[in-house]
């Protein structure tokens, strides 16, 4: 490093005058391009520089200087402009978390997944008595509270859904078995009046081990685009 530094100093000393003079024109170009509200063409730039200056050569030099910087000098539609380096485009985005309430349909579906897991979409629909849109399940997958467990050993081999650890965390449950049963739901006044015969609330289990009637997921299952990127609105 010491040697390197020294070399630089020598280099710097040698053509100091030339450097300084060049710098002035480059400074002008820099300032013009920086302050401009739109890309500038070479003619406009040339008008602000001393006569006889090779604008294109200067621009090329400036472009070279900025090539490895966070901002690059680029040519668009024949005009010149400074732009954020394309590999740093991520800097120009900001994530923000917007609290959003789950829709009624999504909450219902989630509760059915919680109590009845492993459960297929058809089973969810059967219990809810209404068609469940794919969007609703996508939203639930996006929350991270519901996951694809496996596939039911049944015609069509439908995917089975279950809840995740994040589900327990979010709802403050120590274990899935802590979800209240029928008596507790009644006690809480959530189920009122006579309960039809045969009405039962299952004792839920989110044991990750696949059930006898479940097959493991197949390699492609998780990449089906089932997990939406963001901002998915449901139904």
């Amino acid at each position: 490093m010491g040697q390197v530094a020294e070399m630089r100093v020598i280099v710097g000393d040698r053509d100091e005058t030339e450097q300084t003079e060049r710098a002035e024109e480059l400074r002008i170009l820099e300032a013009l391009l920086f302050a401009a509200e739109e890309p500038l063409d070479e003619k406009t730039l040339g008008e602000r520089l001393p006569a006889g200056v090779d604008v294109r050569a200067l621009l090329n030099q400036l472009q070279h200087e900025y090539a490895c910087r966070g901002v690059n000098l680029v040519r668009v539609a024949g005009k010149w402009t400074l732009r954020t380096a394309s590999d740093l485009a991520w800097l120009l985005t900001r994530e923000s978390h917007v609290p959003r309430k789950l829709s009624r349909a999504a909450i219902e579906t989630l509760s059915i997944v919680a109590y009845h897991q492993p459960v297929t979409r058809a089973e969810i629909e059967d219990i809810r008595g209404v068609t469940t849109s794919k969007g609703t399940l996508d939203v639930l997958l996006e929350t991270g509270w519901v996951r694809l467990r496996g596939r039911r050993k049944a015609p069509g081999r439908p995917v089975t859904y279950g809840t995740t650890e994040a589900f327990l965390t979010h709802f403050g449950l120590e274990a899935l078995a802590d979800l209240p049963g029928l008596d507790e739901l009644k006690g809480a006044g959530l189920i009122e009046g006579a309960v039809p015969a045969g009405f039962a609330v299952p004792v839920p289990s989110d044991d990750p081990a696949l059930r006898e009637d479940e097959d493991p997921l197949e390699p492609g299952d998780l990449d089906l685009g089932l997990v939406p990127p963001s901002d998915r609105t449901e139904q």
Partner: protein
Amino acid sequence: MNAEAENAEELSFETELAEPAAAGEPALVVDVEGFEGPLDLLLTLARQQKVDLAKISILALADQYLAFIEEARKLRLELAADYLVMAAWLAYLKSRLLLPEPPAPEGPSAEDMANALAQRLRRLEAIRQFAEQLLNRPQLGRDVFGRGQPEPIAEIKRPQWTATLYDLLSAYAARRQTQARTFVRMPKRSVWSLADAREAIERLIGVSFDWSPLDQYLIEYLVEPSQRPTVLASSFAATLELVREGRLEVNQHAAFAPLYVRARAQPAENGAAPDVGNG
């Protein structure tokens, strides 16, 4: 403005005003308006003394100010009250400065008052000087410029889903309960309602049934095994309801024996009561 007037004793506005006056324009007011109030006028007069404000003679300044006001009056210039108030105060100050101080004066001494005035003038002078320096700084949009094409930061909104355990449980309970009741009431399943079934059999066989345990069989064949107890229960409940209404008779030989049902003398249509035997 009189700021550049040279002669301390002879105020410049005389010469400056001579011309517009000659042109028949009463432009004298404009001249006074060139001052930003009596302090400004005093400051201008003080500058004409060409000395440091710290060493200024307040007495001389008061004289000049009063002379200026006198001139203005002669020319019938309209002066704002502020200027006249200052003139009165300066006249008072002058008299105090010229008279020997009483041994135990009440309130501030003439010296104090003069110093206070000098201090005020210095403060205004300083503020003006630094205001000028401030304005001479490179100003944004005048001398220096920011990025002409700022690149906006795009905001990606990630939803943070919220739901409470109460939401979850009440939704579950409500849905299950609704579903269970719907199940009892609505015949829109793949099975026929018992009423429909009875009607169909009547049409097929051509007879109406007497003391028939038929519902047992209908349930057996038309209802999904898991649903049978529910259907049986609701069917029984509906039957009892019809009995109470006097439209059906039931007969059971022993506990848990098959239940026989027949229409009463004035037979009601089977389908008349929509609550009957849904399956």
